[in-house]
């Protein structure tokens, strides 16, 4: 009996200490991780798909609750006026979610462009959705217009051998349009 008690006590203590240590560590690294993600993954994408802006995107960002998701929106301002919005959207790919950053031009009412920020598609096939030749096709699509690959009767050239990944990217763009439509009122007041 004594031995069993000792095993239970030791294992429980080790687990508790480990849990507390990891919880503390998580608190300490949470902000640096968010900053690093922004600096290395989101900021380069936002710079390319938003027009010239003169504000601090991180300071001005706000969050909108959409269904179960919380979407972070980065507003690009010129002289204090919001001219464009950048936010993330996602859809299912072959192996997991395809996450894209979209830039919405509020003056021309068009999609300025997209950048794939995270995906787990097959290297050499679906992973080619990150190439400019593919993602450039989404530049200047009017907001709310249907976005489909050519085999589905749309305008986007799918990558050969990667129709599902191409379709997933289109679905992510349509989801971004839907989000904009649903939250138009909220977005314009911020």
């Amino acid at each position, binding site marked *: 009996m004594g*031995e069993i008690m*000792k*095993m239970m006590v*030791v*294992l429980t203590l*080790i*687990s508790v200490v*480990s849990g507390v*240590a*990891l919880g503390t*560590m*998580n608190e300490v*690294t949470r902000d*640096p*991780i968010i900053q*690093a*993600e922004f*600096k*290395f*993954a989101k900021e380069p994408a936002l710079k390319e798909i938003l027009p010239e802006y003169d504000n601090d995107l991180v300071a001005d960002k706000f969050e909108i609750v959409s269904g179960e998701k919380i979407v972070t929106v980065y507003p690009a301002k010129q002289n204090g006026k919001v001219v464009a919005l950048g936010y993330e959207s996602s859809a299912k790919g072959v192996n997991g979610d395809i996450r894209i950053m979209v830039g919405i031009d509020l003056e021309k009412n068009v999609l300025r462009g997209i950048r794939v920020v995270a995906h787990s598609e097959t290297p050499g096939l679906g992973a080619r959705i990150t190439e400019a030749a593919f993602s450039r096709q989404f530049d200047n699509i009017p907001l709310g217009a249907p976005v489909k690959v050519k085999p589905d009767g749309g305008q986007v050239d799918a990558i050969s051998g990667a129709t599902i990944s191409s379709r997933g990217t289109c679905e992510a763009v349509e989801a971004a349009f839907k989000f904009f439509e649903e939250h138009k009122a909220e977005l314009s007041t911020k």
Partner: protein
Amino acid sequence: MSVVKEFTKGFWQELPPFRLVLGLCPTLAVTKTAFAGAGMGLATTFVLVCSNILISMLKNVIPAKVRIASFIVIIASFVVVVEMLMKAYAYPLSQVLGLFIPLIVVNCIVLGRAEAFASKNSVIDSAADGLGIGLGYSMALALLGAIRELFGAGTILGGTPMEMLAFGSSFKPFSFMVQAPGAFMCLGLILGFIGFLNRRYNI
């Protein structure tokens, strides 16, 4: 004297991937560049040193029957710490290594050193053992990465600010070398070469 011996054995006699042929999953998977290989090796070194020290300190407290479970909890905790630190302070490297950082938990070198060494030896010896094995592992991974990168991408130190082209811009990369079979072949040739040295010169 013995501390020095425990430290240096990791560089040749017990060099994990080449002499013991251990820890091959990351050895084959993340050595596309020298930078990624060295990063993976150093992350593993951190986990090895920390877990060796802690396990050696607790060796008289942990009952034999639950030792493996205790070791895994300790090792897994340090791996999560490495993962969070890397995301926060070395984000590009964490993107390159991806899933292979959490997989350090099941790297047989780490549990192997805990079970075979740290649970039987003093804290100082265990720290030296972990550091030696870890640095040896890092160098082995960096070497394999450097060879694969040189032929597979034609670069030296790719992914770092010192990146340069080894054969000029007209070089057509031998992309077989940066794919999975290239890793096997490269590792096989290195093992063969070490076997040759071993037989010929008995070192």
